[in-house]
């Protein structure tokens, strides 16, 4: 009986129906995303095209781009955009450098040590953001460890302010985002045949040449995912800028919060949301397109 079944199965392959297209499987997810993401965001975008008015949450009024003109005509407003871009860009770059170094350490570590190093790298994610921020205050505050240390050495005469500046925001963000970056890069490094950098060495490449000509080009895919993740997390971060940058951190997210929760000008707030979203999408697509162009020729997939 079993034998007949086995013989029939391949012979009867004509009777096998092609599996139904799996496209419909994404339908529930699409419906969910439509209601929780596209609809509210679309609604906010539409709202940004209605005249600014405190306390107005509905769609009434004429269509206008006055809110956008207001945003771009006043340095106080558009400077937040520039500052946000600058802070998240710098955060992303610093995170990439530190993350790359950490990924290399993990990659070259003995297999027995690897797990422990990964755990240490992940440790910032294990501490709640509030505890982490107060920890940084102890280090970076006017009478914090860093200032005490520099004063003690006589390098400075009076404490330098770090807390409640962009520098503090960047330090706080880099600290949490480094693990994401390191793990993204590590995934790419792990795909490299260890003989490849060794081959480069036998052909005369020093450490720097191995890094810049072999490892970095081969880890572009991991680097691109790390950069996109860290950039989108940075530009949309709220708690760290609010706690470490102080009330006037000058970041777009804290500004958005003020519009929605304090001045209740949702229509102007919606402008900020739209701009933040557009900016993020622009940067992400640029990074991904560049990475795709760099790897298109040689990657098998």
């Amino acid at each position: 009986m079993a034998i007949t079944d086995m013989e029939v199965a391949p012979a009867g392959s004509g009777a096998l129906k092609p599996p139904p297209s799996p496209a419909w499987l994404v339908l529930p997810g699409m419906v969910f995303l439509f209601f929780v993401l596209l609809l509210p965001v679309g609604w906010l975008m539409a709202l940004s095209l209605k005249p600014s008015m405190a306390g107005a949450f509905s769609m009434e009024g004429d269509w206008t781009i006055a809110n956008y003109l207001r945003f771009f005509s006043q340095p106080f407003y558009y400077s937040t955009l520039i500052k946000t871009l600058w802070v998240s860009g710098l955060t992303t770059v610093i995170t990439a450098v530190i993350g790359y170094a950490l990924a290399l350490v993990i990659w070259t570590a003995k297999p027995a040590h690897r797990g422990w190093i990964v755990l240490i790298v992940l440790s910032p994610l294990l501490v709640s953001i509030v505890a982490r921020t107060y920890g940084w205050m102890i280090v970076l505050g006017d009478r914090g460890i860093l200032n005490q240390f520099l004063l003690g050495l006589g390098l400075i005469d009076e404490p330098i302010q770090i807390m409640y500046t962009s520098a503090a925001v960047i330090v706080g963000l880099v600290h949490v985002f480094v693990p994401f970056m390191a793990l993204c890069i590590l995934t790419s490094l792990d795909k490299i045949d260890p003989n490849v950098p060794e081959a480069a060495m036998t052909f005369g490449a020093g450490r720097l040449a191995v890094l810049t000509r072999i490892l970095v080009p081969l880890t572009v895919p991991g680097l691109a995912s790390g950069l996109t993740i860290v950039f989108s997390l940075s530009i949309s971060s709220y708690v760290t800028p609010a706690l470490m940058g102080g009330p006037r951190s000058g970041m777009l997210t804290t500004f958005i919060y003020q519009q929605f929760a304090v001045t209740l000008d949702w229509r102007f707030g919606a402008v900020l949301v739209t701009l933040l979203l557009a900016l993020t999408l622009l940067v992400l697509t640029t990074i991904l397109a560049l990475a795709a162009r760099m790897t298109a020729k040689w990657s098998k997939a």
Partner: protein
Amino acid sequence: MAQVTLTHITKLFPGAATPAVDGISLVIPKGSFTTLLGPSGCGKSSTLRIVAGLSKPDNGMILIDGRNITHLSAAKRNIGMVFQSLALFPHMTVAENVAFGLKMRGLAEAERRPKVSRALELVELGHLAERYPHQLSGGQQQRVALARALVVEPSILILDEPFSALDRKLRESMQIELYRITRSLGITAMFVTHDQEEALTLSDRIVVMNQGRIEQDGTPREIYGAPKTRFVAEFMGLSNFLPAQSRGSALVFEGVTAEKTMDAGVPQECFVALRPEGLSLSVAKPDGPALNGRLAEAIYQGATSSYTVELPTGRRITARTPDCGLQPGQDVWVSWSPDALHAFAA
């Protein structure tokens, strides 16, 4: 091209009980093709990596043309290496892969181009210069790796089991190509394989390794024709080991006496081995020494057949000869050509 000398090279990996490389001393003369041959795990790759500068020896020295390079980094040794995994640069074209070593040596584009095309011509890949490695077949990738190593005019070309991933036919044609190229360029080469046929085909000299040590070192003829130890004999395809006594210029085994000129090193209580391909079977008792037994098994294998004969002592020997129509159960005589008989210490 250069002479390479290894003196007392030792390498003990942390946590290992025995050294992976255990006091290897070796001179590879200028222009010679020397093969390290041995079973997997005997320390061949470890030795090559030490010569290439990818791994530091615990002890010993490496000299190239008399210059001590033991502490020189891999990048400064002027070595051309072909890895078992090939290790082509996946993000570079064939031409860029080949040009890499020249670039690292500071050659300008105009100087690189003719050298790269000459190297690619040598391995017959000129037409694929702009392809990426993943667009090439296994054999083509192999030749890129070879061109990349040759183009830098290395002091020594190092190859670590480069053909082990190829199928038999491709492997044989690559062996011939490698033979042709290295001999025409007069390259000093250090080759590693666990395949004795490959070693015999390619080498001027074979160094048989076992557990980090050199077991025997000689020309392919010497290694194949006069193995000094049972390990080498087995590795070179000898079988049919029988306990024996040596008496002056004769060997006595299984009640038979055979004349044989032997190395001085063979002790009185020794072993003989009979090469299966050097045996012949007959029903009638031949002239000269021969072993009598019962044919236990006859297996047809095409060009040759494999016959297993059970001797009166219960020991079995196997002969590989052209099919001679004998049937299992028959009483047969086994005789041998003089060079099929070998003797050595146990």
